[in-house]
């Protein structure tokens, strides 16, 4: 498999990249680098600048300032501009943008210039086998299902062996079952090829399940970059904490390495400057557990059945609301009195006056 696509070292680096549309700062002072062969996701709500970032890497947008480098080569900078077709980058758009007047075969062969007929045939057939569409070579795009179109778009962008492949929300037009299947499939293909991949998505589940690392964007700025687990469990800002999953914030005061908060005291990494400060503690529902107890410190006010798990809404004796996620093997009805326990390991401290984690 490694013979098909390029072996040369390919990395993507953005340094202080900004792109403005009039007064709108689509991307603002963005810096990050992506490791060779990595599956990287840009995650954020719509309008956060993730698609613009992708287009900056592709060369479909030109940065107003900053440098973009692919491999060892600067492709966009103050006096440097490498056209998109010379960057060796492949792209899959949300709407796939297949050429409607060409067959699957012709679509895939379009990017293969400078090869002999025989070579083109071999490469197209090989890539069709990789994406599992061998029988559909002579179909036209309108004769394909959504999932097949997505595979063709992937195959088309892979055919010229790009060093980097960019995926712009390629799964969002698919049905739920198919989406899951194609995600896994796409990751497998790209990983086997060793292609460096950058995926743009607003779906944190998608980003987490596919990526080696995730970059969370908000309003054109990079909020956090890290492995899915880091981003989920150690969010660097309230925005990230909220965006990547359900989070409750519990108010408290820092005292000698412990956050004192109503009913509980949580041990946290002690920092001198935090002493005596009022803080919020972020707690994820999966770190909250409880047992039935008539003398417990909380009441279940709501239970939402999610299939494999149940999301409980708990009201603590001091009035605070907190959520708990438990397997649905045992269902506890609303109104029950329970005793709540919280795993402090993943709790993150946010100071009251800033949005950043302390």
């Amino acid at each position, binding site marked *: 498999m490694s013979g098909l696509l390029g072996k040369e070292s390919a990395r993507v680096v953005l340094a202080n990249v900004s792109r403005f549309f009039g007064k709108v700062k689509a991307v603002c002072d963005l810096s990050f680098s992506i490791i060779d062969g990595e599956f990287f996701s840009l995650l954020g709500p719509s309008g956060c600048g993730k698609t613009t970032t992708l287009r900056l890497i592709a060369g479909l947008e030109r940065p107003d300032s900053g440098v973009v480098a692919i491999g060892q080569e600067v492709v966009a900078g103050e006096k440097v501009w490498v056209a998109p*077709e010379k960057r060796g980058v492949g792209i899959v758009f949300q709407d796939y943008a297949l*050429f409607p007047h060409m067959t699957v075969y012709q679509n895939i062969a379009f990017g293969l210039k400078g090869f002999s007929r025989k070579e083109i045939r071999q490469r197209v057939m090989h890539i069709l086998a990789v994406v599992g569409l061998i029988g559909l070579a002579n179909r036209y795009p309108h004769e394909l299902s959504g999932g097949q179109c997505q595979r063709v778009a992937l195959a088309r962008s892979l055919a010229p062996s790009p060093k980097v492949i960019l995926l712009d929300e390629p799964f969002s037009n698919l049905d739920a079952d198919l989406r899951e299947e194609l995600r896994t499939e796409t990751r497998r293909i790209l990983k086997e090829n060793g292609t460096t991949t950058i995926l743009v998505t607003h779906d944190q589940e998608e980003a987490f399940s596919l990526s080696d690392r995730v970059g969370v964007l908000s309003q054109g700025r990079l909020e956090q970059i890290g492995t899915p687990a880091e981003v989920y469990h150690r969010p660097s800002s309230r925005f990230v904490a909220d965006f990547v999953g359900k989070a409750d914030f519990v108010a408290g005061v820092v005292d000698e390495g412990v956050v004192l908060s109503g009913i509980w005291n949580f041990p946290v990494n002690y920092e001198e400057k935090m002493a005596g400060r009022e803080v919020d503690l972020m707690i994820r529902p999966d770190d909250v557990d409880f047992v039935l107890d008539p003398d417990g410190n909380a009441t279940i006010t709501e239970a939402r059945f999610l299939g494999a798990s149940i999301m409980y809404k708990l009201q603590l004796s001091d009035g605070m609301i907190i959520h708990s996620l438990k397997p649905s093997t045992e269902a506890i009805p609303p109104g029950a009195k329970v005793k709540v326990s919280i795993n402090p390991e993943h709790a993150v401290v946010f100071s009251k006056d800033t949005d950043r984690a302390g």
Partner: protein
Amino acid sequence: MRKIISALNPAKIFGPGRQNLPALPLFITALIILPVVVVVSSLLSPTWEVWQHLWNTLLPEMLRNTIILLAGVGLGTFLLGAGLAWLVVFYRFPGQSIFEWLFVLPMAVPTYIMGFVYMSIFDFAGPIQSFLRQQFGVVHWFPEIRSGSGAILVMTLALYPYVYMLAKAGFQGLSSTTFEAARAMGYGSGSVFIRIALPLARPAIAAGLVLALMEALADFATVRFFNFPTLSEGIIRVWYGLMDLRAATELAGLLAFFAFAVILIELTLRGRSRYYQTGGKAPGVPSVELTGWQKWAATGISLFVVGVALGLPIFQLVYWSVGEIKRMPAGAAEVYLGLIANSLLLAGLAAFFTVITALILASGVRMNGGTTARMLGRLATTGYAIPGAVIAVGILVTVTSFDHKLGDLLAEWRGISTGLILTGSLVGLIYGYVARFMAVAYNSVDAGLEKITPNITMSARMLRAGSWRILWRIHLPLIAPGIFAGAALVFVDVMKELPITVMLRPFGYDTLAVWVWQMAAESMWSGAAIPAVIIVLAGIVPIIFLTRAAARK
């Protein structure tokens, strides 16, 4: 707005933001609307003696007839068009699927051909009245076919397909859940039609009615056969008979005013209502299988309509043509071939120039994408709503004055007298066709351009294709169908076009349509038959083509 990008220059995508409106589309639009502007502005500086004279002679009758014609054709095409659409959409009966598209075909028969065929059949000397006289002696009760009612009847038969097609599309676009909801609330199928289907399809029906009314307004030949002079007829008469361009211009201004009024009526009929169908999940209306006498009544009515609007005229034309071919005098074949050559040349040239102009205009508008640009596109396509006589008069006024200036200039410089260069040449005629049929070409070309999304272009770029490769392999193949469809539609429209051709053609330059008109005006029916058959056949081809394309969607 980097929404849709030019077909012609992919490099522009990467330019900084919106493109300036190129000068060429601006110039083209100005040139296209110039004739109409000239005519309408003549209303602002009226020549009172001319109006006085017109009022004392032709005008009152022409105005009255025009209004009666519009009202009659409007009512007739609505009843027949919407009624037939209702029948084929909401009911199933023997032959329904065949009738569904047979009902469209009378559109291929221009009003003046439908007119002279009916004239010949029902006139005093025609076979029907002759037969009645043979049987019963002198017949007094037979209605006079050369009348307003005759003209309205014939135009209704030729023009109802516009209403039919749009009403059918309107009905079919309704979602079944709307009907089921109404049925659940206790409405029968009849009241569902009146209270739900008809109001919901109103915008579509209004659009169809406008198309039919525009044709009726533009027609001058049919109303002349039926001795029912309208404004269009008046313009041709004043220009042809009296060579009075001043009076023709004033009348054309009035006619343009009528055209605007019709558009205004449509806008009112549409109102503020924009009917969105939540459908998609439940498209298509439930149709009822007719039984017993009802089903045969439906088939019978359908057969009658197709027979009257299509069968009878086609049969009569073919009958005449066969007779004509059998006893064709020497040299007649050459005359017919000459007519065909002229028509093909004109239609071909018009199609070519209209499509090229439309391509420049549409890609310019899309490249810019702004509100002003879209207005420009809208403006350039208004010609379709303007009666041909108005455009022809406008071009006569413009081109003659241009010719005079050019002639004076050349005379001053070189001392040569050129005469009028453009007036009465093919240039003026093609100009007229381009202005009139821009909308047809524009819409087709634009539909092709729409397929070229920015992502398509960018995908090609990301696959290392250069500008030429993108143009050649991606853009041209994608817009080619639109270009060909637009060219075909303009071609057929020009084949049957009459007012512009009659007024702007070079002296003695006869086409198939002109020949039909002249022969029919002299009651030489069989002499008109062969060219008429060719025009009808040419018109049927794109209809079949278009209904197939629509069915595939």
